[in-house]
């Protein structure tokens, strides 16, 4: 029983990282129908950036804040320089485009930070031991980041005027423009949210999982699988899906074989796509007027 709870705890903290990435993916998908392959690279970029800033002598909170802001800006910059330039942006084009962006970002990270994995110092706090189940304080930070950042984005979309406007421009772009919601602003905002969520995932996970230039793609794919579970439009479903994915991975590694761990996500992806052959991604397209 202790082992089961231990695996669950590890899975939940890992899943919270996937959840933040899934939230970022959905943010850009709902507004621009962009599947952003570079989403995971925002995480590694923020991780490596904050490591450099800490090494340069900045206090940890300041370094993290600077990294979060920089990566958010980088995401907006990518939107302005790449995504906004494309006239006929389909989901497929967005995948190809952002795959290019991802490759470019990885090359830059490799040149700047080198090939070796690096670690951000752990955030303050004490590790817990609840009846033999050990939980690192950093894992609580990871869950906390999901609650605050993920929850904050959820509230923003559902409760604020800006958030509702963003959703409106996603679902009815023409009508939204008529009532004065600028698609350009909506797009920038969506990428800012995606960049911020990805960066948050990167800085909270770096002290445990380390940051390495090439780590983004797999992370992004795990986030994508979670986002697909949420139909690529539902933040709530994606967050639940991400936590489920993390826990499932943990059980598979513990009870089956650790080598199967990374296969879980792809197995789920295939199952979902077979059960919903119309493609969960096609749904928003159909409601477009």
């Amino acid at each position, binding site marked *: 029983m202790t*082992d089961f709870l*231990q*695996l669950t*705890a*590890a899975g939940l903290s*890992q899943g919270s990282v996937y959840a933040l990435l899934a939230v970022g993916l959905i943010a850009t998908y709902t507004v621009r129908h962009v599947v952003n392959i570079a989403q995971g690279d925002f995480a590694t970029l923020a991780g490596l950036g904050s490591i450099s800033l800490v090494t340069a002598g900045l206090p940890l909170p300041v370094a993290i804040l600077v990294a979060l802001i920089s990566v958010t800006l980088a995401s907006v910059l990518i939107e302005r320089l790449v995504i906004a330039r494309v006239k006929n942006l389909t989901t497929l084009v967005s995948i190809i485009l952002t795959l290019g962006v991802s490759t470019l970002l990885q090359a830059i990270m*490799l040149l700047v930070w*080198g*090939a*070796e*994995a*690096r*670690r951000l110092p*752990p955030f303050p706090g004490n*590790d817990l*031991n609840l009846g*033999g189940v*050990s939980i*690192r304080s950093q894992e609580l930070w990871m869950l906390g980041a999901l609650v605050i950042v993920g929850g904050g984005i959820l509230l923003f979309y559902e409760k604020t005027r800006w958030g509702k406007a963003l959703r409106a421009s996603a679902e009815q772009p023409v009508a939204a423009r008529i009532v004065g919601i600028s698609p350009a602003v909506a797009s920038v905002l969506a990428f800012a949210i995606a960049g911020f969520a990805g960066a948050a995932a990167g800085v909270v996970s770096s002290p*445990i*999982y*380390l940051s*390495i*230039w*090439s780590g983004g793609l*797999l992370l992004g794919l795990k986030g994508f699988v979670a986002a697909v579970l949420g139909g690529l439009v539902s933040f709530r479903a994606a967050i639940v899906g991400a936590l489920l994915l993390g826990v499932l*991975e*943990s059980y598979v*590694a*513990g009870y089956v*074989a*650790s*080598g199967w*761990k*990374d296969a879980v996500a792809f197995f789920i992806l295939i199952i979902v796509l077979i059960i919903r052959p119309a493609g969960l991604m096609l749904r928003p397209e159909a409601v477009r007027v």
Partner: protein
Amino acid sequence: MNRARRRRLLVPAAVAASIALALTGCNAANFGGGDDGGGDGATEEGPIKIGAVLDITGVGANLGVPEQNTLNMLADQLNEDGGINGREVELFIEDNQSTEDGAARATTQLIENEQVDLIIGASRTGPSLAMRPLVEAAQMPTISVAANAAIVDGSEWVFKTAQNDIVVLERILDDAESKGYTKIALARDATGFGEGIADIITELGAERGITLTATEAFEPSATDFTAQMTNLRAADADAVIIWGITPSAGLAQAAYVQIGVNKPVYQSHGVANAAFFEAAGPAAEGVLAPMGRLLVADQLEADDPQKEVIDQFIADYTEAYDAPPSSFAGHAYDAWKIGVAAIEEAGTDPEALRDAIEATSDFVGISGVFTMTPDNHSGLTADALIMAIAEGGRWNLYEE
């Protein structure tokens, strides 16, 4: 294959080769080597080409990057000193991205396109094993810098400079036996480096009254080790061996301490670098690992036969790269020096060069004192290893 058939194949091949040579402006003397008999004189011109296949990016980066640094530094030093017998040395370093197919591609590239005289690499066991059939078929003298004995077992053309895994495990199990441990649990790298480790422990353990009670595996790219460590905790052994490279072995160590297994840990020589401490953090404290003398050079006896070589290498490397070398840098150093000494003596004819490497005797290197024989292409004994303990953020000499 009959004679007429062979001729049909040979003619177009020869034409294609001539065209390729003419197009690339290659030195024809490098082509064909000693096959035509008596052509040796022709190969002894132009630069000497040494190729290297290293894990510069990917999971083996902590190994490949210092190895790349070392080879670049040694090649520069050698050329400043006038090269080998007056001939300049050209170094071709290929990144295999820590993959088997990358290593195979890079090897083919070095043999076919660069026509190198000697190959060094790869950094890890898996890629090294992928290179083996290629270099054996091409009769290319090759010195791997990876650990698993399978790389050189029964090989004709492949040598290696990292200490054999079996010798490392002997060291670990000797220490375990002396402390009265009877049950050992293992978490091993799921790639070539960890292949066969469980069998060796079972075999060597039987002589020492030690049984292997649990085996877990982890990918070198893994970041979460909770599952494996939870299972090790349930195994209830007297001690645990974590067998992998940094950073994964370091992350496993961190998870091990976090989960609270609370048993002594042995690690392999795959963690013989400072990066282990970055990955494991405070969890590194107290870990024992057999390794070469490089990382504890400042604690060696003054009369240690390797001390002078090691001190010089540390000084040179630190000056060039502003950071101390790792054991993996040392493996590259040994491969380079053994290879260069053999070329100096025998030239670049593949057969002669191979024989010269095989005749390496009492070579004082970083990872130990090498004596190769036709049956032993690794050349190191258990004396090459010391037991090190992780204390205060560095490796220290362990007094039993």
